[in-house]
């Protein structure tokens, strides 16, 4: 650097923050934080490290405007961001350093991708002159994250930061939402440039919401009006497009029994008379069996996941299929559609409403009720009102329902407890079922509950995990303690990786390979983090313990020791048809 340049440089430094027209001279790292504030981000989750330190320095300076939550592992940061996004509908934000910090985000990113959760992840990267040199904590995170992101981008110049972050938020939340990763080299964080911010309003190569053809609306209405045994399966699309009211109005007018996928849970209340339960592997008996009896199957904002369809060749082959969908690549991907209604679910449902004839389909609806009775006698009664020794997961859910009056957001992990929670939790409010549906990420629950509670402190948030998944992200108790996040934590402890054990029992002749868990004292661990904590082992203690937990104004940990070898039924065995669902 010659003398003149040096002089100019000091001059630039002096002029820092002098506003010239609409721009300001600031560093790339400050720009990152300012962009987040411009996008309305109030909370972000992350973990500092070398390559992201300039941004953390700015987060320190801006801490009165944006709250950074120190997670205990980057995976926890992503799940917290996901929980935040799922309960609020806003974009969740996670931040990490290069190398291991970045790779630790991948599980959460993959989870957000498959469950269409809007999330922006920011990673630090080694300085651009070291890219590709195997520098300390260098990893090709853009390459690694490509298959699991909706979009990703590496920034090597500070001047790119505003446009790229604006694009990131636009892509993450528009159309079918998803995760975006922005990787920023350390030199770009230090570099100064003239900052100005403009939100992204469109990208020429990207059509977030495909055009809805009026003809498709009319064709769908015709099929629905002519149907004798119509059946709706709705998914998360109803929640993502804020279509809950429009959806309810349509099914009420047409009188259609409606079932939900795990991701669609809570879009309409559990108690709604047309809500006939969950479809899929551990869903309810009636909607699974009657999928193969309906004459018109109306799929709304769902993607015919294999856990929903079972054996595809024997899935609803008798039915005409209508698919309301925002993502054109989902049409005919798994199930051949007769009428595809592309577009936003809310807009499409509002458009079809006036074309739908009022109907009730009482006789058809009675079939669902009859099959529910069979399921109640064979499964539900024993789950919720057990008489034999050993607590069931179902009765714990029943107590939570009683105490929460269906107002709580239930955040689950993955496994038996998740299926039980989804089957039995009562939901009065939308966005109340926060779970890892598509990826089945053990360890999701506890950190996701942190994000959910922070986004909606006014809501009761109950985290329900098994003893396996809980230990995958148990360190987030530290985050709960530090942030004073008033989540209620329930661990249903059966000392097994229960779902895998169930499969071993049913399909591997009870060879319990590596599914038995020797567990620590969970109450002592919670107390180690200074949380209120209790353990329940007997039925007569359960109601009071749940009541005490729910009444707590602070975080509370409740371990319930449940029967060791309980199974989740009904069950559509892997590769079987939905109508071959087993009740025992």
């Amino acid at each position, binding site marked *: 650097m010659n003398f003149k340049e040096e002089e100019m440089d000091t001059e630039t430094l002096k002029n820092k923050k002098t506003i010239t027209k609409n721009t300001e001279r600031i560093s790339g790292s400050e720009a990152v934080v300012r962009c987040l504030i411009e996008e309305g981000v109030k909370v972000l989750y992350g973990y500092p490290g070398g390559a992201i330190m300039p941004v953390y320095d700015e987060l320190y300076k801006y801490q009165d405007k944006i709250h950074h939550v120190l997670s205990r592992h980057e995976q926890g940061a992503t799940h917290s961001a996901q929980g935040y996004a799922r309960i609020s509908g806003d974009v969740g934000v996670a931040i990490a350093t290069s190398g291991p910090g970045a790779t630790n985000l991948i599980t959460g990113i993959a989870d957000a991708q498959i469950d269409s959760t809007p999330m922006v992840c920011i990673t630090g990267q080694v300085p651009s002159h070291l890219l590709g040199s195997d520098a300390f904590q260098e990893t090709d995170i*853009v*390459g690694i994250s*490509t*298959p699991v992101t*909706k*979009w*990703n*981008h*590496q920034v090597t110049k500070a001047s790119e930061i505003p446009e790229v972050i604006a694009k990131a938020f636009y*892509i993450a939340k528009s159309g079918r939402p998803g995760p975006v990763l922005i990787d920023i080299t350390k030199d770009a964080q230090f570099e100064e440039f003239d900052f100005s911010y403009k939100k992204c309003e*469109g*990208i*020429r*190569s*990207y059509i977030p919401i495909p055009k809805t053809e009026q003809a498709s609306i009319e064709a769908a209405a015709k099929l629905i009006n002519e149907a004798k045994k119509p059946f709706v399966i709705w998914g998360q699309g109803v929640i993502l497009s804020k279509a809950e009211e429009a959806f309810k109005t349509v099914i009420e007018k047409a009188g259609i029994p409606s079932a939900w996928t795990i991701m669609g849970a809570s879009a309409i209340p559990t108690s709604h008379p047309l809500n006939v339960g969950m479809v899929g592997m551990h869903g309810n008996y009636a909607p699974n069996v009657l999928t193969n009896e309906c004459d018109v199957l109306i799929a709304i904002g769902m993607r015919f996941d294999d856990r929903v369809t079972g054996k595809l060749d024997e899935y609803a082959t008798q039915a005409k299929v209508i698919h309301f969908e925002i*993502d*054109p*690549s*989902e*049409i*005919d*991907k798994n199930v051949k559609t007769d009428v595809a209604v592309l577009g936003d679910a809310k807009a499409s449902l509002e458009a079809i409403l006036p074309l739908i004839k009022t109907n009730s389909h009482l006789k058809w609806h009675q079939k669902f009720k009859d099959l529910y009775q069979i399921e109640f006698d064979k499964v539900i009664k024993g789950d919720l009102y057990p008489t034999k020794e050993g607590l069931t997961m179902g009765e714990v859910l029943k107590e939570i329902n009683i105490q929460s009056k269906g107002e709580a957001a239930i955040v689950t992990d993955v496994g038996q407890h998740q299926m039980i929670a989804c089957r039995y939790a009562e939901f009065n409010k939308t966005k109340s079922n926060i779970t890892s549906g598509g990826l089945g990420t053990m360890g999701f629950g506890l950190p996701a509950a942190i994000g959910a509670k922070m986004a909606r402190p006014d809501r009761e948030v109950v985290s329900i995990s098994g003893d396996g998944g809980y230990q995958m992200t148990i360190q987030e108790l530290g985050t709960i303690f530090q942030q004073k996040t008033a989540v209620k934590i329930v661990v249903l402890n059966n000392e097994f990786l229960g779902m895998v054990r169930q499969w071993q029992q049913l399909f591997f002749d009870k060879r319990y390979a590596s599914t038995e868990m020797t567990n620590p004292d969970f109450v002592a661990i919670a107390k180690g983090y200074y949380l209120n904590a209790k353990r329940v082992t007997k039925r007569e203690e359960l109601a009071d313990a749940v009541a005490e937990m729910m009444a707590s104004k602070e975080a509370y940990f409740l371990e319930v020791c449940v029967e060791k070898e309980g199974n989740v039924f009904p069950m559509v065995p892997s590769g079987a048809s939905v109508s071959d669902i087993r009740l025992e």
Partner: protein
Amino acid sequence: MENEIKQFTVSIYTENNIGLLNRISAIFQRRHFNIESLNTSVSEIEGVSKFTILINMTEIQVKKIIGQIEKQVEVIKAYYHKEEDTIYQESCIFKMRSDLLFDERQIQNIIKESNARIVTVNKEFFVIEKSGRKEEIEEIHRKLNAFGIMQFTRSGRIAVTKDEMKISQMLKAFNH
């Protein structure tokens, strides 16, 4: 018909972006499809790149692949074409020992009959270039192989469609 494995040409118009090749090839890799050939170049529109990919699969599969490709944020439009819908060329070059050119008169005939051309000749080797349809290239390759080829390289397919592709209109519509 839709279940029969056939050769399809996939053409993809994209923004010119680092990493997009990775994103697109990952779509094939994830589903265990082998790409027969791949060519990327500028397109007729300034700032827009074009991928031309040759693939063997069923029509049902190629439709789904197109959906997955179009879903990528920086892909403007993707199409698949059957063999009869495109006009295409492939190109190849052969490096051969120079003495063959004088010892084996047959080689000169092959070059003439195939409409190939000699690009360069020196003491040790000479280089033949041939552009054409796949079968033509396979034929000259077979014929020259008998004399011993020092090096052989073949390009990916490049293709234009008989029908119009309305990319410019699509991009214009965005600007309005």
